[in-house]
């Protein structure tokens, strides 16, 4: 096992990895930027080093500084978490050159599987279904039309030089093909000066379903089943769950086998995720591979009983995977919501700031993975993820009931959060029936909001009394700023500025 592990990340995922190290009794080292000196991962660790100013380009993305800290502190392994350098082959090579184990796949596997085009080519070689279509631009309309017939309608014509929906046509029937071909070509020529178009099968309202895999260095590759991640806002996952309501044991086996074949073909080692689009006929098509731990990994942990981070560390240390099976049956149901510091009433603008008060959710079937605490000021420089709230239960219904209950318990004040979005989604009939797809949430947000639940009788009176009481207990002279106010004294700020900015 490793002597010491460097955690090259911050926030909730740094805390998650730190906990795994503590459980395995492996000493861990954390790093922090100037604004993260009091971040939770730094407060919970035994050893920590500064790596520079707040912008990630000057701290968490600095390969040289991270390798230097690892060497100085005697680390023989680095866990990258997700984001930042987790999918950067240059970082993996720098680790190898320094004689440090990177807890993740090799740089080569990252390159072959991580890129969309290379990943698709590998998928074809491994006989993993990809979205049917022609990779090369088509010249002859008749040839294109017979190809469209062969793959079945609807199909999509896409400009080679395309973007922004220009030169794009969805064709639903054979009779409309010729005119759509002309329109797409001339539109593409006008917009981009290039009339060439691709042809691709069009998936109507597809689901995003991904397979978690684990591969050890001794040739064993296993699938840990699927996660349903179709609830997305502008391509960003918002809710994830396992199992998916549409995945049968048969489909789970087929998707798992496809993911395992792909991992073997790419020489993949460690934890990874193979993402698929699944259409209404339950045909699945390869989308891409994420060569790292995913944000939503706790969902899989709750239905498999496995600890993915500890397994990642064990695999990197050369241990064998301790399972014999190649697919898995999930136990119960798990669902994760991503709580962000953003304002759902104002186009989901990020709302960083200080957490003035907080009541957390606990109790049966609830897990809270987070990197925040009361009194912490969310920095503006990074992703505004506050907490991942995960619920699990015997059934999807029980899981949703627990999640609703936990969202009522979880209160945070001082900053705005997207918690109201989840209260809404978890009461939508289509969501409850599992009738979802990757555009479902974007559609929902264009519909009028259901009427708000009226406040309980007495709410207003209680609020008035609470406000007066709060005013009465404020120390004299502070007026309504309160002891927990966000405003620093102007005199102090000015004094600090005078000390720091000595040059004009």
């Amino acid at each position, binding site marked *: 096992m490793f002597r010491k592990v460097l955690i090259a990340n911050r926030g909730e995922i740094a805390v998650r990895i730190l906990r795994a190290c503590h459980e395995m009794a492996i000493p861990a080292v954390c790093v922090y930027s100037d604004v993260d000196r009091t971040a939770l991962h730094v407060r919970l660790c035994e050893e920590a080093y500064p790596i520079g100013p707040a912008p990630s380009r000057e701290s968490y993305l600095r390969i040289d500084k991270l390798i230097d800290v690892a060497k100085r502190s005697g680390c023989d392994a680095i866990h990258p978490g997700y984001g930042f350098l987790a999918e950067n082959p240059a970082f993996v090579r720098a680790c190898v050159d320094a004689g440090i184990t990177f807890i993740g796949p090799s740089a080569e596997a990252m390159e072959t599987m991580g890129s969309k085009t290379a990943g698709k080519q590998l998928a074809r070689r491994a006989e993993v279904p990809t979205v049917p279509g022609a990779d090369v631009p088509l010249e002859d309309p008749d040839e294109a039309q017979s190809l469209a017939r062969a793959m079945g309608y609807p199909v999509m014509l896409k400009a080679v030089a395309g973007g922004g929906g220009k030169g794009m046509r969805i064709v639903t029937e054979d009779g409309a093909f010729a005119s759509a071909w002309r329109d797409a070509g001339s539109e593409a020529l006008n917009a981009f000066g290039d009339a060439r178009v691709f042809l691709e099968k069009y998936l109507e309202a597809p689901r995003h379903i991904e397979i978690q895999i684990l591969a050890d260095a001794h040739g064993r590759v296993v699938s840990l089943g699927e996660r349903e991640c179709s609830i997305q806002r502008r391509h960003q996952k918002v809710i994830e769950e396992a199992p998916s309501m549409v995945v049968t044991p048969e489909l789970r086996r087929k998707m798992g086998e496809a993911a395992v074949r792909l991992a073997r073909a790419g020489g993949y080692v460690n934890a990874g995720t193979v993402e698929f689009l699944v259409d209404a006929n339950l045909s699945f098509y390869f989308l891409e591979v994420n060569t790292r731990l995913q944000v939503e990994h706790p969902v899989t942990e709750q239905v498999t009983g496995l600890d993915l981070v500890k397994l990642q560390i064990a695999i990197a240390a050369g241990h064998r995977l301790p399972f014999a099976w190649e697919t898995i049956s999930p136990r119960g149901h798990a669902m994760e919501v991503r709580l962000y510091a953003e304002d759902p009433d104002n186009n989901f*603008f*990020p*709302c*960083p*700031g200080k957490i*003035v*008060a907080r*009541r957390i959710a606990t109790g049966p079937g609830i897990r809270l993975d987070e990197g925040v605490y*009361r009194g912490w000021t969310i920095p*503006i*420089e*990074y*992703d*505004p993820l506050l907490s991942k709230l995960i619920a699990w239960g015997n059934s999807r219904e029980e899981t949703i009931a627990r999640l609703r209950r936990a969202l*009522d318990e979880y*209160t945070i*004040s*001082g900053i705005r959060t997207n918690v*109201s979005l989840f*209260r809404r989604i978890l009461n939508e009939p289509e969501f409850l029936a599992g009738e979802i797809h990757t555009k479902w949430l974007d559609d929902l947000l264009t519909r009028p909001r259901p009427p*708000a*639940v*009226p*406040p*309980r*009788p*007495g*709410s*207003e*009176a*209680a*609020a*008035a*009394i*609470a*406000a*007066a*009481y*709060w*005013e*009465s*207990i404020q120390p004299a002279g502070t*007026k*309504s*700023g*309160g002891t*927990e*106010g*966000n*405003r*620093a004294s102007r005199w102090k*700020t000015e004094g600090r500025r005078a000390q720091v900015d000595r040059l004009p």
Partner: protein
Amino acid sequence: MKYEVYLEGATGKSKHRVDLEKDGSGYKVLLDGQPVDADVILAAPNAVSVILNGTAFEIHIAPTLEGHYKLQTGPHEYVADVRDPRAWRGKKLGGMEAEGRQQILAPMPGKVIRLLAKAGDEVEAGQGLVVIEAMKMQNEIRSPKRGRVERLHAQEGQAVNAGDVLAWVD
């Protein structure tokens, strides 16, 4: 102690008089002149528990940049402006309406990336004044009222903290 509480919630605005009189370890509470059975206590930092005739409310309180209080109880939110009518220095009146000379504050820490107006410009209510970038998102800060930009403190490229004065509109 007597307070006037101006409350604004999703269901509208209201004004209440609240009298709090020490009574043993708790308070005697009068709401709009009527005695009410209310047990009020600080349950945790910034969390007030009110039990009103047996109905329990936990209310989380945070100050706003304008010097008011934001109250949250379950999914419901209120903004309260609390005034002590006996205090010789009254707070500024009509805090919820954009009337008179307005201070434009940065709602979040970030960087000023663009100025959309300059000192002396006539602006409409809702017209953008400054664009602030925070967390890689651009946020337009708008004028709360129609008027003239009296002063513009913000400068392009400047880093600002939440609550910093960006401009004055009169």
